């Protein structure tokens, strides 16, 4: 059965399609996203406090490598098969190399609803997967620029140190790591006083956030026809291929069935919060609407509606 939060996403999509005047205030969106990032971090941190470092280090290394590898794999596909220019290909590749926190939240909710156990410190994987894909995407764009013989990044006022600051201390990574740290330090007992807010209310807040994402994704649907069938096909097929990559890696790491499904969903997801802002500054030549339309207009709905159940099936097949 479909998870209740997914219906809120569909409600948001529907509101856009029927041109309802529904809009969530920007401040609410900000508040909800801060809440989700902290809640996911805290939950992961509490579990992390029960783990030994030895078991986790290989997972951490895998996440960093996966984030770097995905853009490198997708770039030639986007260049040759989708027919994008070097900047657009690098930018789209970066979005898919990074992750979607909400896809993670929906995947966790899906597994929890089915009583399927997974490594509860998985929030750490999310935090580690955010940045490497963006860095690899920017490096690809610089390489494409050099090959074209164009001007260097200096013209756009871009600097790697400013980017590192924005990515590593930007809202997403900062709040996830902050929540993870507080959760690890305080453990289950220490975080009990705030658990009613961050644990019990989580799914309701996720539903509200998905309503907003439905509205935003619905707004992107109109742009799909502008970018053609190749981009849509990419945004549907890439997640499936990447999910297999994530799942095989997770299997090799010896993760649980639920853990394999989560890693597959993370590999399949594309960022639409951290990556768009970082890529806009670092690679202004790229068409930002193209990446967001693929990530949020196609891949996110696909993952939430069909992908996550498929990734669980894949995980069950592999285990």
């Amino acid at each position: 059965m479909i998870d209740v939060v997914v219906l809120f996403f569909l409600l948001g999509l529907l509101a856009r399609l029927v041109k309802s005047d529904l809009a969530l205030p920007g401040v609410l969106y900000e508040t909800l996203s801060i809440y989700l990032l902290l809640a996911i971090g805290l939950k992961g941190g509490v579990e992390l406090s029960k783990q030994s470092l030895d078991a986790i280090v290989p997972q951490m290394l895998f996440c960093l490598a996966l984030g770097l590898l995905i853009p490198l794999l997708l770039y030639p596909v986007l260049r040759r098969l989708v027919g994008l220019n070097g900047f657009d290909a690098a930018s789209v590749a970066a979005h898919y190399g990074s992750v979607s926190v909400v896809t993670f939240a929906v995947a966790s909710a899906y597994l929890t609803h089915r009583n399927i156990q997974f490594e509860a410190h998985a929030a750490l994987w999310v935090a580690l997967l955010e940045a490497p894909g963006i860095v690899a995407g920017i490096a690809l764009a610089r390489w494409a620029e050099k090959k074209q013989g164009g001007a260097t990044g200096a013209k756009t006022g871009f600097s790697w140190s400013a980017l590192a600051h924005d990515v590593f201390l930007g809202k997403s990574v900062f709040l996830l790591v902050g929540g993870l740290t507080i959760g690890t330090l305080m453990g289950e007992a220490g975080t009990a006083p705030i658990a009613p807010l961050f644990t019990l209310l989580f799914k309701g807040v996720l539903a509200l956030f998905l309503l907003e994402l439905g509205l935003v994704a619905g707004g992107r649907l109109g742009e799909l026809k502008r970018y053609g069938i190749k981009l849509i096909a990419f945004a549907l097929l890439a997640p499936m291929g990447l999910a297999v990559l994530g799942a095989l890696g997770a299997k090799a790491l010896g993760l649980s069935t639920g853990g394999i499904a989560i890693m597959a969903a993370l590999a399949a997801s594309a960022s639409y919060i951290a990556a768009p802002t970082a890529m806009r500054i670092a690679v202004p030549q790229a068409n930002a609407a193209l990446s967001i339309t693929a990530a949020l207009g196609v891949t996110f709905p696909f993952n939430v509606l069909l992908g996550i159940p498929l990734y669980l099936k894949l995980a069950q097949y592999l285990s």
Partner: protein
Amino acid sequence: MLKHQKKLLVIITEAVLEKPLINDAKRLGAQGYTVYDVRGGSQYATHEGSWDADRMIELKIICDEAVADAMASHVIDQYASHYGVSLFFSNIEVIRPQKF
């Protein structure tokens, strides 16, 4: 009341440029600025500003004509080819010119 002529430079652009533009404005001699979150659209795109990557800002700078000109040419030269940028000048009057 004695009034002094100044320029008001208004730049409407993508929110990701807020930090670089403020740094540029200070470097080119602006003594202050005001930033608003705004919504809007054109024949190219609609920016509802409902989420991070879609936000637009309006940056207002009151300054001398030379500073406004320098800032405007810098913005056109540096950013206009790849970012959505609209800018305009107005003649305004202030009471305390040393503030600007």
